[in-house]
């Protein structure tokens, strides 16, 4: 299934947001905390990740808190 992750096309087998994050987190060495995910422009609460299914062409934003001023 083709998804757009942070603006880039990615091929994913993940069926929901939690599964997608597990794959991305391992690949990108992400921390468990300080992360947020939006699906098609709407924030998905962490507690809803597992129940939020993904479909072809979905746009996903994975962001993290970083140093800032």
């Amino acid at each position, binding site marked *: 299934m083709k998804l757009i992750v*942070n*603006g*880039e096309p990615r091929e994913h087998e993940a069926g929901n947001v939690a599964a997608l994050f597990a794959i*991305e987190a391992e*690949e*990108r*060495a*992400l*921390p468990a*905390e*300080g*992360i*947020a*995910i*939006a699906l098609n*422009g709407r*924030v998905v*609460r*962490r507690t809803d990740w597992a129940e939020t299914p993904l479909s072809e062409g979905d746009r996903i*934003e*994975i*962001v*993290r*808190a*970083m*140093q*800032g*001023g």
Partner: protein
Amino acid sequence: MAHHDTNLAAQAGDDLLEIAGQKLASRLFIGTAGYPSQGIMADSVRASGAEVVTASIRRVSLQGHGSDTFQKLKGKRFLPNTAGCETARDAIMTAELAREALDTTWIKVEVIGNRETLYPDVVELMEACRHLVDDGFTVLPYCNDDPVICERLADMGCAAVMPMGSLIGSGMGVANPANLELICRRSPVPVIVDAGIGTASDAVIAMELGAAACLINTAVAKADDPVRMAAAMRHAVEAGRLAHLAGRIPRRGRAEPSSPQLGLVGS
């Protein structure tokens, strides 16, 4: 003397900054970006005595990430920002992501109108703030040093206003002290001077003019010795606050002897 010092400390301890019902002992907010290393950043935050630290929200990259910055800042209150956003829409989205990522309703709303000057886009800023206040955020907008805009933002329900001392990262200090004093005198919410502080004396001036707090990043992060500058800022903010509360003497154009005039030795 020791007794007297204790009393002074107690007095300062009673002078808490309150933002949206949250009481803060430190009037210095510190930024976490641009330090030579994460270790120096953490040491600087510690030396600053700040309880509030700022953060940004960015897309994770494909390259992976190093050690987690925020493990080092456990116990601090995070103030995420919407830095880099140029529209209300992007700022709102960033705020929503920040709330989820850092589990806080606090947000420093920054909407930039010009990439060269990083001047706020007031029209977009007002729209973003209105939406975020309605959505239950504790909104702290980075804004122009304009008394009317600051008033409008406070009326709207912003928890504080953060007028610029001068351009972001410029180190030019408080460019318009008359404006800042006016804003501080009239504001119903705390005024936090954000941007432009270059060295300790700039922070003292901002606080003497009546600012409730200062938010400082570049002046500390890019100093030759950030940890030492962080400590200097801590003292500067405290000194300026005490001087503001103490009330300065009026300026006068002639000398006024401080020693007694009677009983002078000699003829």
